[in-house]
């Protein structure tokens, strides 16, 4: 379980937000809303452990997330940068991605992950030749190739067409049904597939 308590964030001399607190239980999803520049990305980076926290606490299963290897094992963070190498194929990228995360992955699993996001037949093309939406689909495929219970997704469906958004919705739904947790931001309408009972939204204000 993830809990965030009285969190605030400063960038340079500017205060982005303060007093932010929420909890995320198994099988639930938190939809982070807020205007541009209010600090959604910074909040996600703080919760994932990329940005240091000076005021407030973030804990995973009761332990602070700083220097917490157990937490990092359970986390997938997907930000604006897709962490995909242009010169490598989607297949290679996903295998290396799992290896960097410290996990082993079966090639068949990668292929089926790419297939379920509609990239069948493009597994071995260099990422360079794919479209923006296809690149993002390939990057999202790591949700299926890696084992983690907490997904932190910054604008996951941006640049995706309607069928791909639906596919992402199905992926999120399956994850929640298995007891996973999702924390995400989006300016697009929510993927339909997620049952509304498991979604809470949190509005971030400056």
């Amino acid at each position, binding site marked *: 379980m993830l809990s965030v308590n009285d969190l605030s964030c400063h960038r340079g001399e500017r205060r982005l937000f303060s007093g932010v607190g929420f909890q995320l239980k198994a099988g639930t999803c938190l939809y982070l809303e807020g205007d541009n520049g209010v600090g959604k990305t910074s909040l996600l980076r703080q919760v994932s452990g*990329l940005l240091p926290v000076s005021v407030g606490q973030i804990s995973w299963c009761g332990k602070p997330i700083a220097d917490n290897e157990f937490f990092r094992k359970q986390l997938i963070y997907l930000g604006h*940068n*897709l*962490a995909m190498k242009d010169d490598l194929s989607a297949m290679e990228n996903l295998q290396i991605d799992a*290896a960097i*995360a410290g996990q082993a992955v079966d090639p068949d699993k990668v292929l089926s992950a790419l297939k379920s996001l509609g990239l069948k037949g493009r597994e071995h093309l260099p990422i360079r030749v794919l479209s923006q939406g296809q690149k993002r689909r390939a990057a999202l495929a790591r949700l299926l190739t890696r084992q983690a219970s907490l997904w932190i997704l910054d604008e996951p469906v941006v640049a995706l067409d309607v069928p791909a958004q639906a596919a992402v919705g199905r992926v999120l739904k399956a994850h929640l049904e298995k007891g996973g947790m999702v924390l995400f931001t989006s300016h697009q309408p929510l993927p339909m597939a997620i049952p509304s009972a498991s979604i809470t939204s949190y509005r971030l204000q400056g």
Partner: protein
Amino acid sequence: MNPFIAVVRRDVSLALRRKNEVMTSVFFFVVVAALFPLGIGPEMNTLRLIGPGVLWVGALLASMLSLGRMFAGDHDDGTLEQMVLSSASLPSLVGAKILAHWLLSGLPLVVLSPVLALQFDLNLQAIEVLMATLLLGTPLLSLIGAVGAALTLGVRGADVLLSLLVLPLYVPALVFGAGAVQAQTAGLGASAHLSILAAMLLMAAVFSPWACASALRIALE
């Protein structure tokens, strides 16, 4: 796959797909070594004297050429974030990147050095010592340079700054590297120099990945 090996393999295969990056440092090394005799004159005694120093300075600058790109690619496309968030330790992943950098821009120089040493009329023993010092010294250069590359990541004017930060720290490697060959030709034996180089390499191998990891975490803030 072990994360360390995966990162080394990825960096090497990426570089081999774009061969120009590897070729740049090799070409630089060869050209610098060829330019010195043209600037100084063909007097063999002089060339024999300056040979080790020239080859070492050439190797040092050649391995520095590619330092700026060491972390920049991973920083730009977000892979660095994934490395920081990995459950594998960041210093070991950084160590893998440093090893890959050495394999791509240090090892080729070691292999090439005997050919270039012939241009300076170094004898066989001197060439052996030169290769040994470069074998110990170029990984040291990659380890030290990586700290500078990590500190200047995403900073304005990173290239100039990088050379300002890194070159002073290269001094000991240069002194003992070139000094070993000169000591060998002077008949003093190079074993003391080589052991000091090895000691510095060990020390850098322990501290540098750790310092790089801290610098990279700072760079991502």
